[in-house]
């Protein structure tokens, strides 16, 4: 026990105390208690307050966390425990002082909700554990106790014995996996990939029919974002063009399907499939027209111009000028539903359509990426000057990338408009472009599994987190920050393919790399 111990403990405790005050002010303690009670299987009505015992669980977790983080890495065990104690005590002190204020508010029946909207009497009451004045003391005691507990936990879990134990488990898991792969017959190993794809296919065929229209809607959105992400990845990830206006290309696909396929404003009824094709073509033309003037721009400048392009398209769609043509701000309603072999579409068929479109997009992406074209794009991204001097027609390939990427965006837009039976300028805001950009970057640039994961994480999760209501975006933002710290290269980073094997066919035996070192001439 020394000065340092007291300093670290009280600093951390203070921090956690302040965080606790903040959480109470935004009513998060109620939220957290509700979540815990849900996890433990109690049915909580919406808007109802949780029971106090769940509140206590939340406080215990929080207090232990405070104690845990107050413990430094070095120092003796007693020191560490003491740090936990000080941390918990400081947190408790801060929280108790805050509780005292709240208690006075409660006693005098002062309503502060005009300034702090979340701070209702019921909320204060629950925070004081329903004990009113005694609650303050209880809070202090609780935090002190849990602080020590957290410290003890930290001492225990960070000890050498535990580290060794974890290591042992890891090695045994690895050994087990190795043994399983070794024991599998060669056929299974060889066709394992195909078996996996088959299982995936069966899953994708069964799921949409089973799990209800809400899930179909959510995962349809995920699929549309996967297609958009692939389109953007061709521009951004492969050819290195910083495109922010992909919503404009998305809008071109969506509006083509909408205008050619709805009673208003033009009364054209071309049917879904031809208009989808037109949508793709329109998006490609859009990409080409956008590409021509921006060929010489690079990096941030390109980003700014494409951002402007996206906004121009949206504003045009919103403007009075084009109201007769595009329906103006009200958008286009009653888009005719597609039929397939005479059968009308429902949510399940849309799910299948999106899965097929996604599969086709992924297939096309892989085919193009692993080709002369894909490598030319990658070289442009790496170093456009050298790429050109190596023989790549940089301008042509950049335009090609914009057009191919735009085709995917148009496809996604067409499906999107038809599925919603409506599209308007608000479906094509800057947020769409930014969302697609984050899907690609968070998931992992140039990585299809990454883009799929990213779409799930950024589009699927917020929908599924809808139960958390107001805290949806808070949790979501925290997840994003956490992810960017833990996995800065994306959820599933890309790796370059191993190609040397493929070219080795016509040659003699392999040389050992070590043996080969230093043989620059022979």
């Amino acid at each position: 026990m020394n000065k340092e111990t007291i300093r670290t403990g009280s600093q951390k405790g203070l921090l956690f105390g302040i965080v606790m005050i903040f959480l109470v002010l935004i009513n998060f303690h109620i939220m957290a208690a509700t979540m815990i009670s849900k996890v433990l299987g109690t049915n909580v009505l919406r808007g109802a307050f949780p029971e106090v015992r769940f509140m206590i669980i939340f406080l215990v977790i929080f207090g232990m966390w405070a104690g845990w983080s107050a413990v430094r890495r070095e120092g003796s065990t007693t020191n560490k425990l003491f740090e936990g104690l000080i941390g918990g005590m400081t947190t408790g002190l801060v929280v108790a002082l805050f509780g005292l204020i709240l208690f006075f508010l409660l006693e005098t029946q002062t309503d502060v909700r005009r300034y702090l909207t979340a701070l209702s009497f019921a909320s204060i009451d629950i925070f004081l554990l329903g004990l009113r004045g005694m609650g303050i003391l209880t809070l202090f005691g609780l935090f002190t106790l849990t602080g020590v507990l957290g410290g003890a936990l930290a001492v225990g879990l960070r000890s050498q014995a535990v580290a060794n134990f974890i290591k042992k488990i890891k090695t045994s898991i690895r050994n087990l996996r190795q043994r399983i792969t070794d024991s599998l017959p060669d056929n299974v190993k060889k066709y394992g990939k195909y078996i996996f794809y088959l299982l995936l296919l069966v899953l994708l065929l069964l799921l949409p029919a089973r799990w209800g229209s809400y899930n179909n809607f959510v995962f349809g959105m995920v699929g549309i974002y996967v297609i958009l992400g692939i389109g953007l990845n061709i521009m951004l990830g492969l050819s290195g063009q910083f495109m922010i206006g992909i919503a404009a290309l998305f809008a071109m696909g969506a509006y083509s399907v909408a205008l050619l396929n709805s009673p208003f404003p033009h009364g054209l009824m071309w049917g879904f499939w031809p208009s989808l094709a037109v949508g793709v073509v329109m998006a490609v033309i859009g990409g080409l027209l956008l590409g021509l003037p921006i060929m010489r721009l690079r990096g941030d400048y390109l980003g700014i111009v494409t951002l402007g392009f996206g906004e121009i398209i949206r504003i045009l769609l919103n403007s009075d000028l084009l109201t007769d043509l595009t329906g103006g701000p009200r958008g286009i309603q009653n888009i005719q539903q597609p039929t397939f072999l005479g059968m009308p579409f429902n949510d399940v068929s849309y799910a299948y359509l999106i899965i097929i479109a996604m599969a086709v997009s992924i297939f096309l992406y892989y085919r193009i990426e692993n080709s002369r074209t894909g490598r030319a794009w990658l070289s442009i991204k790496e170093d456009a000057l050298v790429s050109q001097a190596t023989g790549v027609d940089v301008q042509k390939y950049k335009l090609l990338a914009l057009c191919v990427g735009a085709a995917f965006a148009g496809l996604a837009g067409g499906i999107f408009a038809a599925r919603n039976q409506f599209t308007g300028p608000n479906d094509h805001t800057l947020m769409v472009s930014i969302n697609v950009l984050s899907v690609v970057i968070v998931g992992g640039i140039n990585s299809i599994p990454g883009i799929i994961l990213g779409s799930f994480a950024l589009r699927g999760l917020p929908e599924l987190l809808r139960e958390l209501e107001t805290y949806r975006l808070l949790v979501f933002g925290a997840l994003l920050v956490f992810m960017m710290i833990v996995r800065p290269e994306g959820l599933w980073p890309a790796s370059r393919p191993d190609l040397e094997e493929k070219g080795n066919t016509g040659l003699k035996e392999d040389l050992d790399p070590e043996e080969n070192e230093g043989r620059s001439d022979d």
Partner: protein
Amino acid sequence: MTEIIIEAVKVSKYFGGLKAVNEVDLQIPKGSIYSIIGPNGAGKTTLFNCISGFYIPETGDILYYGTPIQGMPTNFIASQGISRTYQNVRLFGNLTAMENVLIGLHNKLRSNWLDAIMHSPRFTRENSWSMEEAVSLLDFVGLKGYGDFLASNLPYGMQRRLEIARALANKPRLLLLDEPTAGMNIQETTDLTHFIQRLRDELEISIILIEHDMKVVMGISDRITVLDYGTKIAEGSPDEIQSNPRVIEAYLGPGGAALAEKYRSQRRKNNA
């Protein structure tokens, strides 16, 4: 008289008021190793950039097999069979060594994105051919077994050789090497010198070389041009250049020639 592969006629390149290259004439005979030397800032790399199309010369012509190529885009010049390497290695660092060489093969392939989607016969044929070609090129420069390493993860000497492999993939008739031995140790430098000679003898590539290592230059050059302040001050065989007083002054400053002569006579006396 041997055929001239590339010829510079009174080529000048200015940067603002600075005459980086000033009315330089060059004639490179086919199948030769031709060195361009000179102190730092003499305009050697600028001249290279004019030949490979990075810069458009203000005046003068660059004739490749008698046809002017100045002002053409760099990819066109590359497609004509002129490849180059860079003073500070410029590989596609996040791609593997194989991919770097495959991009070098770009001009030798014709399959487009539609072929890639359909896996047309042309694509399949070219794909397997290019893979084999890339591996044999890696083998040729001594990088066999390193094909799947990221270019930026390779050691420096290997990066230099990979850059040459990428340049060779283009099947060049003229290869521009910009300080290929910079940053190499003695052993690597000797290896590379032999390698350059092999390029000329086995692949019949004409080579223009910018180099500061005089041992390399004097050892393998057929002819040498010396630039100073953008102007050509001497041209000739290695022996002629070594004894040229203007060259010595350019390197050692005024009076350098006399100084060199003094050391030379001293050495002769010691040897005797």
